[in-house]
């Protein structure tokens, strides 16, 4: 087991390095840098000015060197610009050249400086992540129990009318992307046109003070899309378990139906949904981006959109590194959990 985890962590590191390098490559293509220079400086810069702007800030070094500096395995650049000021990767605003560290990359715990938010990225991402964490917590709390209940109810009597109804409902929720359900919810529950006004159409206030009125719609919107898929998986696995020999034996012994479902079937039926729930994380991340944009909730997904829209290179790298690690970690946890839950499977 230890070896398996070690191998997976190694693979995870290689994957994150490959992916951040891809992001690095794409964000450092010249047209992107040009856009960055123009938004940072001014829009009427000539080509020569753009070049010198980029050169002074170390953007025109060869790609592998820049990447190594970002990682922190090469010393950060120190460049004396054409205007005479000395700029360095490790020289923060208001810092003397002599005080700056030689290495300042991810390995040193320095994620860089955001050009959009004018803030330290490590701090920024952490704050936004905690906001998204709050959102995800409530999403999970709503999504998992309701998905499991729907799946179990549908799967325990396969082919019944309850099963048909619940299956159709789960298909409908998987067919409703967040931007559709979110728009419908806002229009129905918070617009003046329908006159219901039960909830708030924006979750901006929920960042400090979340309550049912301003937080329920975004949570519901994300939960709904993932719910159908988990429910269908639970239903399939429940239906399979219910046809097993030991369930028939229990029935013939005269155990009540409730007891069969609760005590005999449930434990085995919940192995598959566990994996599915863990693998839903990457999808939920997508939902988070859409919902945070739609409801104006300034969490991690919102930062992703801002960083990508403004080509904030270091922020984008941090965001992609974090999301890739989240995705791979959940895969790892789902694999390990699967082994623990199902003794028939071994990793070696």
């Amino acid at each position, binding site marked *: 087991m230890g070896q398996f985890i070690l191998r997976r962590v190694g693979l995870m590191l290689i994957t994150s390095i490959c992916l951040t390098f891809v992001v690095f490559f794409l964000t450092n293509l010249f047209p*992107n840098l040009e856009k960055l220079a123009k938004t940072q400086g001014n829009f009427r810069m000539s080509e020569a000015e753009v070049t010198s702007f980029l050169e002074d800030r170390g953007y025109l070094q060869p790609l592998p060197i820049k990447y190594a500096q970002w990682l922190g395995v090469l010393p950060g650049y120190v460049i004396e610009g054409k205007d005479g000021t000395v700029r360095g990767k490790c020289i923060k605003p208001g810092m003397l050249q002599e005080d700056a560290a030689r290495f300042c990359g991810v390995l040193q715990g320095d994620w860089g400086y955001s050009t959009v938010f004018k803030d330290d990225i490590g701090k920024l991402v952490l704050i936004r992540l905690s906001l998204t964490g709050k959102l995800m917590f409530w999403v999970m709390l709503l999504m998992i129990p309701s998905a499991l209940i729907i799946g179990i109810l549908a799967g325990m009597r396969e082919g019944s009318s309850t099963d048909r109804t619940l299956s159709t409902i789960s298909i409908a929720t998987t067919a409703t*992307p967040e931007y559709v359900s979110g728009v419908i919810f806002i229009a129905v529950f918070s617009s003046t*046109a*329908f006159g219901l006004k039960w909830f708030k159409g924006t979750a901006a206030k929920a960042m400090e003070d979340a309550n049912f009125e301003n937080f329920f719609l975004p949570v519901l919107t994300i939960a709904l899309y993932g719910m159908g898929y988990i429910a269908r998986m639970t239903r399939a696995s429940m239906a399979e378990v219910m046809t097993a020999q030991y369930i028939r034996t229990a029935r013939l012994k005269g155990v009540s139906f409730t007891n069969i479902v609760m005590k005999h079937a449930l434990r085995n039926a919940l192995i598959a949904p566990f994996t599915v729930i863990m693998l839903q994380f990457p999808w939920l991340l997508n939902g988070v981006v859409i919902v945070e944009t739609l409801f104006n909730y300034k969490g991690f997904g919102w930062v992703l959109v801002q960083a990508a829209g403004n080509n904030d290179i270091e922020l984008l790298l941090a965001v992609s590194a974090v999301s890739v690690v989240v995705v791979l970690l959940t895969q790892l946890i789902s694999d390990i959990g699967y082994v623990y839950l199902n003794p028939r499977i071994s990793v070696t």
Partner: protein
Amino acid sequence: MEALTWAEILSRMFYQLTPVWIGMIALFSISIYYKRNLGLYGKLFDSKIGMIGFAIVMFWVFVGFFAGALDMISTHDPLSQVSGMKNKVPGTPFRGAEEGDYAFYLLGGDHLARDVFSRVMDGASIIIVIAPLATLFAFMVGITLGLPAGYFGGKLDTLLSFIANLILAFPVILLFYLLVTPEIRMTGLPQYMAIFLFSFPILFFAVLINTRYYIEPQKRNILMFIVVGLLSYLYLSLINEPGTKVTVFNAIDGFDVPGGLLTVFVSVVFVNSPTVFRIVRGLTLDIKTRDYVSAAQTRGEGAWYIMLWEILPNARGPLIVDFCLRIGYTTILLGTLGFFGLGLDPESPNWGATINEGRKLLSIYPHPALPPAFALLSLVLGLNLLADGLREESLKD
């Protein structure tokens, strides 16, 4: 003129959709009459869920066809802005209507005073062309790479699986934001990706024909010349675009695809193919242990013949089901792109962009955002139900 009531709006929309109803009635009566001779497609009409799904999907296909190709259903030009019609509620009379103009905005006007009804109907024609086509390309890539990965295994499998997992670990929206920007388009990167990804169908068909007819060289050569020639022509026309980085084939460029559209297309194919790859690889691993594969191996058939003519046909059931589901997923992805204002021209009436524009005034004027939202929802729902029906019917035998 009085504004229309909801009953009038609905009946007028129903009337406006007449060609679609005629098309659907014709299709369904023919299909149900001949359903015993139509294989899996015919069996679909035995399942209620499958039939409902198919009806919804065909509804949008017909709408897309009649609105896009024949210009029949829309009441107004989806791009023209009419003063005085801004944010007007559904059923508002068309201001300053002249002879030949349709007298109402059936579903109201959006924030740029365009007709919502016409935009939704014309949006269907974009989706029903791009989504299946992109899914088809993704399947070509996934099948061409997934078959050898599953069949040969070893280093090739490790490498391809690693790359597939790499792409899958990327959050889709981040990938879109990195790939589908005007700046990236300027570097020509999407076109290079198109050169790579779109070569797979040619490769696939070339191998397909060669493995089948290599004992009859003459027949093979003729077929190969026709099919590969035609595909290559389409391929070169697709990737070549005057005024961009790829202009080598200007002389034979048959048609132009707007840069934004090509980029969207490429990224959707790119995002979808790793999943298809994984499915095909899994199916191949399963099927290659069957007896008929051993029989073919003993007969001395080549590896590619076994993959394409023994394994692939026997994997068709799950693949067809996944194809339907994946068209739905592609539709959602295209909508996501539109929602973030990426790729396609924001003026164009694609549903995602229309939802995105409508959401800004959602709490005051919800009517421009809701019709495209329901349209997208119903199409994806239809595809899901269709896939469900197909799965049920293909499991029966």
